[in-house]
């Protein structure tokens, strides 16, 4: 990575065996028995999209929990994020309009 002028740069303290960018969490191997959170960000028609997700996920063996942000214009409140992290193995966040 080439550092941009003026950017804050630190030196990598590791053995440099892993990429700098944060790695993604591995995809779940199966939906069977997985609890999937469906997060409605409170945009119009997001609920319709998530209703379809719910039907299809349940058909494939997952269980579903629904959550909603108070408004799409701000990040999800900490307690919502915490609740999803505690209760779910995966999450789908729906845009719509």
């Amino acid at each position: 990575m080439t550092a941009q002028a003026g950017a804050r740069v630190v030196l990598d303290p590791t053995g440099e065996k892993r990429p700098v960018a944060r790695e993604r969490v591995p995809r779940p191997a199966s939906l069977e028995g997985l609890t999937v959170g469906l997060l409605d960000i409170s945009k119009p028609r997001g609920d319709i999209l998530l209703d379809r997700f719910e039907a299809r996920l349940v058909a494939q063996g997952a269980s579903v929990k629904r959550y909603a942000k108070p408004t799409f214009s701000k990040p999800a409140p900490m307690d919502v994020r915490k609740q999803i992290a505690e209760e779910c193995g995966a999450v789908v966040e729906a845009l719509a309009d």
Partner: protein
Amino acid sequence: MPAEPLLPSGLVAFVKRDCPTCVLVEPVLAELAKHTELTVYTQDDPAFPGGVEPVDDRTLDVSWHHGIETVPTLLSVRDGEETERVIGWHREDWRRVSGVGDLGSDLPERRPGCGSLSVDPDRAGELAVRFGASRLAARRVELAALEDEMEAAFDRGWSDGLPVVPPTELRVLAMLDGTTRAPSEVVAVVPPDLVECTVEKVAINAVMAGCRPEYLPVVIAAVEAACTDEFNIHGLLATTMSTGPILVVNGPIRRAIGMNSGANVLGQGNRANLTIGRALQLVIRNVGGGRPGEVDRATFGNPGKLSFCFAEDEEGSPWTPLSTDLGAEAGVDTVTLFPGEGPRNVIDQKSREPESLARTYAVNLRSVHHPKMVMGFDCMLVVGPEHARVFSRAGWDKARLIEELHSLLQIPGSELIQGAGGIAEGLPPALEGATLPKFRQGGILPVYCGGGAGLFSMIIAGWVNGATGSQPVLREIRP
């Protein structure tokens, strides 16, 4: 690294307005500009000196690259090569170099200059980073605009659970001033990932741990010691036991870097003690990839796995230091690594005779890991001043104490075998008739330190000893 700027041919002067001698020679420079090919680099004020068209060197790019230490400095340059250098104002030299015979007739014969801004201690680090960036090989990690630099280290898994100092290049270069070794020199191959760890990587982790540059040689020696086959940091890391590396520092460096060997010696409050031990653990974690829950399989661990490092009180000790016991020359700086668990207090406020106090030690040492386990584990016996006095007054040296402890810790097999005392843990029944020592020869390591008041000592039980476990390892600390 930016390319070194070439000097123009002719005379080249470096000045700053903040220097009285430079102000003094201002008319001289104006005079030279009339008669010679002159370039003046100005370090602070682009309008100074008057009477010439100065070149702005406020970035100090030209001054730094040409090693200007004093202003004014006058150079004679031919085809980009410096052929002569005059430092400060010296009339005869300026006349000779410039070929202008009546130069500065109304000025004093000589006047010393001032320090060049390119060697200003306050700016030296920043300039070294700007101009010397390619010295360091580590991957650069750019933080996102909205990323908090302290949180960034946690997010990337670089922290032991406490905040770390962000390892900027400026801080790492300052840290590297603590050693004469090249940043690229390989210190050790660090388990479990078996990564070659350079001086630079040690320095980065030492910055994060909070070390000062003068601690770096101790950290480097500790990394060397930890990664030997004898010390076996891989096994010590991977064990389910709670043990970790413990560092004991001997030699004059203890005082030079302000280590604690007195009150609260095993506790908090001393930067050198705490950060040196932490730096070693961060090297194991970050360079070696040894993390709790991964290769580190400790059931409980112990708080000392954050950092466990202390100095022996050689000046106060009636005994030889640990370092010479382990073969080092007296007065040599060393770090000894011992694989140990958390320390445990031994109280004896009544014994005034060495025989009695030795017995107190023996009954407590018997319980190391289990009273029915023998020979498999060493121990460090940290003797405080008030206990040590009981032995020294009676003329007991360290060897005498160790000999007494070994003889008090010869244990009948009947007490050690499985089922003895109603406890299933124990040795095979065939050893019932044997007498076995609690510790192998060399397995008791007394160290002297601690505060002046308190009739206490401390026991630090070791991890599995011998070829399959870990041996105490001493390394000389080199600058």
